[in-house]
């Protein structure tokens, strides 16, 4: 089940700013990634307990003017986080 429940890389730092944007900082690579407020919302819900569809549901509930293609956008965003090593999927022991 963990295979479809993404979880953030615990080493990565979320630096939130007063304008609700944030920077993800990976201390292992020294790379930074800017997140808009929706990205921040998604990041905070990648806790390994929710499927991608459930995270999409969180976005729909919490954001205004959600476009019809929101599910695709969320999937792309999460896939990109995984590709960058900023998030992943827990491996069963």
């Amino acid at each position, binding site marked *: 089940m963990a295979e479809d429940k993404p979880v953030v890389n615990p080493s990565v730092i979320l630096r939130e700013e*007063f304008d609700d944007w944030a920077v993800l900082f990976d201390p292992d690579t020294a790379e930074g990634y800017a997140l808009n407020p929706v990205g921040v919302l998604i990041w905070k819900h990648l806790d390994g307990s929710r499927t991608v569809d459930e995270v999409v549901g969180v976005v729909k509930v919490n954001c205004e003017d959600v476009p019809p293609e929101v599910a695709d956008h969320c999937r792309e965003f999460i896939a990109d986080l995984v590709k960058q090593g900023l998030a992943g999927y827990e491996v069963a022991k």
Partner: protein
Amino acid sequence: MTQAAASLGREQARVMRTPKSVDIDITDRCNLRCRYCYFFSSSADVKDLPQEEWLKFFEELNRCAVTAACLAGGEPFIRDDLKDILAGIVRNRMRFSILSNGTLINDDIAAFIASTRRCDYVQVSIDGSIPITHDSFRGKGSFYKAVEGIRCLQRNKVAVAVRVTIHRQNVHDLENIAKLLLEDIGLPAFSTNSAGYMGLCQKNTEQVQLSTEDRHLAMTTLLKLIKKYGERINAAAGPLAEARGWREMEEARRRGLESLPGRGTLVGCGCTFDKIAVRADGVIVPCNMLSHIELGRINTDSLADIWQNHEALWKIRERRAIPLSRFDFCRGCDYIHYCTGNCPALAYSLLGEVDHPSPDACLRKYLAEGGKLAEEAAD
């Protein structure tokens, strides 16, 4: 503190929620007593904290999403528990850098640093191409040990940064220093500064600090070396930075520009917008060089609260709004609209005032004392 900040109408959106990095004097101890060290005889010269205090503080830095710690002192490698300190930084999701005299670095600690994969760089001070120059103010034997420290870091694939502090005894040695560092040792780059009127330098200024002629020589030589080595030689302060900054100001004056963007007020320091510092005794200060301004204490006061609300910290940030025209020192200056007012810490050490332009890097004063711009000299 919160009320005080709010009453001044400060727009907190202008700064980050928490500092991005923290400069930490991890020890008060040093095996050398360099004659121009800014640390000793300053307010930063205090007693060390035990490791436990630092480890607890690193946990707060983690909660504050601080991304990097820069360890200085004192000499960080003098701490027997440096590995534990670094492990605590890594455990709390930060990267780190270390400022060192290089003389206590060995393969064991260099290998450990490499193994963390979180080290941005270890900066080693090299002030001469030969022992007699380097050791003149740092002490006999320190040159060979510092160079071996660099070799040690290189062997272990730790990124090395070198800082050359320019003073009266090495200003004639700059070309050889550049050759040593960039060609013989093979560093990708090094940075330069000059001995400033702080700490022990205040007692030894006649022997240490550059005269007007020395300053001109340093600027001219460094600009010549830039032609050879390009950006492999850099500077944020000192003769090379002044040579570039002053040329820009003179060009603006010649062209009759009304101003240069963002100049004409006390904008000379932006440090307090993204970082903060901690003394060796755990007192939080705006900067290692403004260590007399005590903002609170680690593990007692909230770092985030200090960062967002402490009046003394905001006062330094708000220096940027103070026009240079307010100061008698700047009155009638042709460069007033092109000038930054320079370093507040040097202003404090020279005049006892933070909210004042620093006379040390004043172009008008330099010219009045017979100084020439490096551009003229090169021509």
